[in-house]
């Protein structure tokens, strides 16, 4: 966990708040690159944020795509970032992956600053409108992704085989991706994101281009990952799916955070998440 506070000292002993409210003695280390991290004796008793945004602003000229947004996502949480088109959802995802720099504020993933490439060690990413080089087959693409993560060849082959089954693409994995439909590319994209068993899955419109059966399969797949302790950060327009999968959600509009809460708290009585979304966005 990064604590960029100038007050803390090198190798400083202090107490750290836990999920159960208790505090336990921990050690704060100052790394050579000026970042701090905590060594906590019993990690299981403490809250770790997989994602943290502190007063993040992103401006394109005079337009604020993201305007002073702060929130965090706990480890193991299924989190949905909701908002209309142009709300700033994809910009937040891009800042988390260091694809674009924030104008102000800081972001961390898995306790590391987003500018640190090591923060992406634990991240699987599925982009909106996913593309795969057309001259590669789905299998070759997955192998490449595994190679880039320094996974051994035999382990990569095992993982790729398992993932091809998981995303339901058996029998098509060795054909060129230029022959794939958008939905098939999306499935391979999700498969590529799952390579290396990431702790955090960042999904930008994962069901885009999928038919209803495909959407249902992806939802079931994401639900099954929940049991493995994976954290999911989901950008989606399919509010009914989000409602079924996610624990927490944040709604943003015009770069501003409107609300962040548990979905069970946001959706009351006969309301649906769609009603809540429309109510917040339309003010």
């Amino acid at each position: 966990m990064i604590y960029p506070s100038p007050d803390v000292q090198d190798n400083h002993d202090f107490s750290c708040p836990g999920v159960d409210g208790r505090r336990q003695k921990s050690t704060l280390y100052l790394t050579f690159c000026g970042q701090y991290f905590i060594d906590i004796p019993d990690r299981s008793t403490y809250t770790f944020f997989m994602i943290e945004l502190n007063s993040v602003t992103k401006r394109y000229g005079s337009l604020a795509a993201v305007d002073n947004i702060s929130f965090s996502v706990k480890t193991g949480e299924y989190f949905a970032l909701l908002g209309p088109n142009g709300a700033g959802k994809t910009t937040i995802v891009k800042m988390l992956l260091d694809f674009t720099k924030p104008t102000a504020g800081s972001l961390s993933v898995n306790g590391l600053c987003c500018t640190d490439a090591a923060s992406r060690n634990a991240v699987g990413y599925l982009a909106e409108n996913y593309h795969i080089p057309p001259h590669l087959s789905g299998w070759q693409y997955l192998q490449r992704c595994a190679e880039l993560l320094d996974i051994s060849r035999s382990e990569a082959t095992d993982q790729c085989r398992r993932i091809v089954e998981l995303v339901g693409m058996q029998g098509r994995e060795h054909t060129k991706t230029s022959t794939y439909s958008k939905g098939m590319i999306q499935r391979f994209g999700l498969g590529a994101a799952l390579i290396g068993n990431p702790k955090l899955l960042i999904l930008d419109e994962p069901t885009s281009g999928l038919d209803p059966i495909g959407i249902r399969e992806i939802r079931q797949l994401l639900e099954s990952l929940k049991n493995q302790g994976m954290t999911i950060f989901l950008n989606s327009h399919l509010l009914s799916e989000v409602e079924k999968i996610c624990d927490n959600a944040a709604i943003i509009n015009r770069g501003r955070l409107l609300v962040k809460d548990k979905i069970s708290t946001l959706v009351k009585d006969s309301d649906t998440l769609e009603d809540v979304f429309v109510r917040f966005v339309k003010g």
Partner: protein
Amino acid sequence: MKMPKALSPIIKIAKYTLTDEVRQRSFVVMFVICVTFVFLMRGCYHGNYMVNGQELDAGAIVGSVSRATFHVIAVGMMLLTALFSMRVFRRDRDEGMQSSILSKPITRRQYVIGKVLGLWVLSAFFMFILHAIIFLTASITLKVVMPGYLVASLLCSFNLLFVVIAVLLFSLMMPDIAAFLCVMGIGIISFVADGIFAISHSSKAQAMMPQLGSQQDWTAWRVVYYLWPKLSGTQHFASSFIGSEGFPEYGSIYPLINILIYGLIFGALLFWRFRNEDII
């Protein structure tokens, strides 16, 4: 032996760049055309050449033709390398490979080095094969071995490194075709400046100096000659190994140093520019 951790992604990205480029149909077509052209050059070795009414001996013919072919291949490869390089970032972006690579624990610097390395190795290897065909033709058919020919090819590959870095840098700042034309412009000015410098140092030009223009004009050309990226100079330095015995004079190494310094400067600019680039 285990590869250093920072080096591993660079090698992989270089490998992907290389294989993706070779898979392009345009690359295969270019390669076939170039190899055919070089094979056709064999005919030039068998002609009877007369200079001032005297027939040239085989050694002189081989030396001259090989040297001329060396320059044609080197210049042609600079052109082809610029063509290969200009679309690399855009293609990676369009095909989703850039975001796929950079969403992994790979730094932008590693990505850029991998791209540069892949393109450089590919173009240098391409040029080496063409030069090697000439080398083998001369060795097998005419029994004239020119070991300096392959050394010259390797030295000339530093020009290709400069072209790769420059085109990649410019392609981040302007349309691909403009980046290509800019680097070709740098090359043309380099060759023209070298030509003018050579002419200005000829005895005829020295005699005509007062009529040719003011001393200031020549000084401006000298500045361009020394400070401009010396693509032409490096090529001439490399070609001095062909048929020469021993190492060329020390002063002539300046073009190579010049091109390496420019490579470093442009490389630093490329890192800086790509660090601030938004990944789509």
